[in-house]
């Protein structure tokens, strides 16, 4: 990954995969025992692990196990998806499994922020539209879905529905500024001034000016 501007994500196209249920927490998306790692590599195979496998590692019924969804890249979910732990391991696991965008009724905030940091849009739709899209994906696992981040629409079959993309998220993705490190580092002097203005920050805690 470079330190330069990130890629532009105006839209995501591909096929869908439905994961139903409200309040699906990040412990379900990636159980804590798989977080005993110092990189995110290889997390993809553990996405939804305990929902997908029993104690003997036999497959259970779960969309992530079903052959027709193995190439899917647009995850369709319901309400409050990604609640709980702040672990970025959750979107990392989904991304490494193959997910490029998530469409759902609503998302927990930290999860949505973590997705944005990876360039994964989290677009929200009404409850009816989320359920209709899940049903469509079940019926048509090979049908293309277009998530248009810029226009705030999702198109599938012969339907186009309006979706909501948080303003900052839309701007970040469409303008390719979702990798914020370089952007914010450019303001290092202003940050130093801000730090010095705070009564609880002591002078020796503020880094000296460097040419970088």
């Amino acid at each position, binding site marked *: *990954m*470079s*330190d330069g501007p990130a890629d532009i994500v105006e839209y995501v196209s591909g096929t869908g995969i439905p994961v139903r*249920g*409200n*309040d699906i927490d990040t*412990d379900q998306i990636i*159980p*804590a*025992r798989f*977080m*005993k*790692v*110092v*990189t*995110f590599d290889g997390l993809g195979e553990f996405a939804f692990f*305990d929902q997908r496998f029993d104690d003997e590692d036999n497959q259970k019924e779960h969309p992530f196990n079903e052959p027709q969804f193995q190439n899917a890249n647009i995850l369709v979910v319901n*309400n*409050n998806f990604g*609640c*709980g*732990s*702040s*672990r*970025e*391991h959750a979107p*990392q696991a989904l991304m490494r499994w193959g997910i490029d965008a998530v469409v759902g009724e*609503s998302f*927990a*905030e*930290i999860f949505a*922020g*973590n997705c944005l*940091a*990876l360039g994964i849009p989290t677009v929200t739709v009404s409850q009816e539209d989320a359920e209709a899209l899940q049903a469509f994906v079940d019926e048509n696992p090979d049908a293309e879905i277009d998530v248009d981040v810029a226009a705030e629409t999702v198109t599938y079959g012969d339907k186009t529905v309006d979706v909501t993309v*948080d*303003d*900052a998220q839309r*701007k*970040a993705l469409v*303008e390719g*500024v*979702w990798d*914020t*490190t370089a*952007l*914010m*580092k450019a*303001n*290092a002097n*202003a*940050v130093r001034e*801000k730090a010095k203005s*705070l*009564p*609880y*920050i002591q002078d*020796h*805690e*503020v880094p000296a000016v460097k040419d970088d």
Partner: protein
Amino acid sequence: MSNGTLYDNVWDKHAVTELPTGQTQLFIGLHLIHEVTSPQAFGMLRERGLEVAYPKRTHATVDHIVPTADQSRPYGDSAAEEMMSELEQNVRDSGIVFDDPTTGNQGIVHVIGPEQGITQPGMTIVCGDSHTSTHGAFGALAFGIGTSQIRDVLATGTVAMEKQKVRKIEVTGELSAGVTAKDIILTIIRKLGTDGGVGHVYEYAGSAIESLGMEGRMSICNMSIEGGARAGYVNPDETTYEWLKNTDAFKDNPERFETLKTYWESIRSDEDAEYDDVVTIDGSAIEPVVTWGTTPGQGIGISEPIPEPESLSPEKQETARRAQKHMRVKPGETMEGYNIDVAFLGSCTNARLPDLRAAAEIIKGREVDPSVRAMVVPGSQRVKAAAEAEGLDEIFREAGFDWRGAGCSMCLGMNEDQLEGDEACASSSNRNFVGRQGSKDGRTILMSPLMVAAAAVTGEVTDVRELEEVVSA
């Protein structure tokens, strides 16, 4: 839009600039790090040839994977050892203070910050951990972040954020005996929902909150995230200042304390502050709360019946059915008498000294039910030492509790402290998600430390108030 709240005041003082995305670049006054969510961020820094910008405003500890029984190195679990070594290397390279277990200062990140006085009012505080909201108890703006944001904070001392709405939650009246801060927050989450706080910061106020000590306020702010709110806070007051005065940060530096107190006073919510909305809850009506399901919003008073899924709002019904199946509970029954196999007294929600004291009061002279495996995991090495100085460890040990070292332990089962099979656990922690405590068939019942103590001695979910009556009779 809110105006003049502590949130607005602290936000304004830390806002650096507006980014092209419309987000605010916010200066972070304190960055806490631990072994699970930071190694990848340091890796990203190395890939880009960047250094830690504010190492002296960064503070590290080890908590999630640390064993709570045998802490000798190398750790028995090689993955845990690798994470610990990685953190040691990263803090050494960057010049970051690290409270490792050899210092006597190690503990859960949300326990050690407040106890050392690192956590202060009017700060912005982040950590790669959703329970960072805990620090809001001191009137700080504190919230959890993901690993890519940890990279941002390490590299720049700032995060990109959008401003949120502020909801004031007023808890009026006085708590009755046997009711604790934990019961307040479980009631709030039940009432407002696990997603009710999304897009909001919670300001906790009212007589029932103000009369709590700092530990109780921390328990409440801690679980803001369980209600969907990324941050929650209590305005600083004399209780806050008393706590701070005695911490490492200020005990030998009264001048600095006085200087900063002026700042702390200045960021309190104004008398005429405007909120996006206000919710009022009658604190005197709250009874001990336990969860019957698999989200922290699925709680009931100990005397109340488990709800029929059909009686809940439509979007909650399917979740409730799944939860009742997992927990093997029936609507119409109360949770009283539900058999437990494990009692866990620990976590960043409830493992501070008053939590242990209160539980010890219940335990004293009693024995853990033979069917129960019970453990106390103090929140920090300092909490452990203070408890031992009072003889609390003896009370717990004599009753049959395992008295362990400090860490996150069975709250999330990343070390060897885990549920096995379908064990049911009376837990003072914060999440009852399926699989949370290390076994995907495990069953977690969230409750206060008092209620955990009561359950430990009876072997079933028990109204602690009735237990006390039996003793006094």
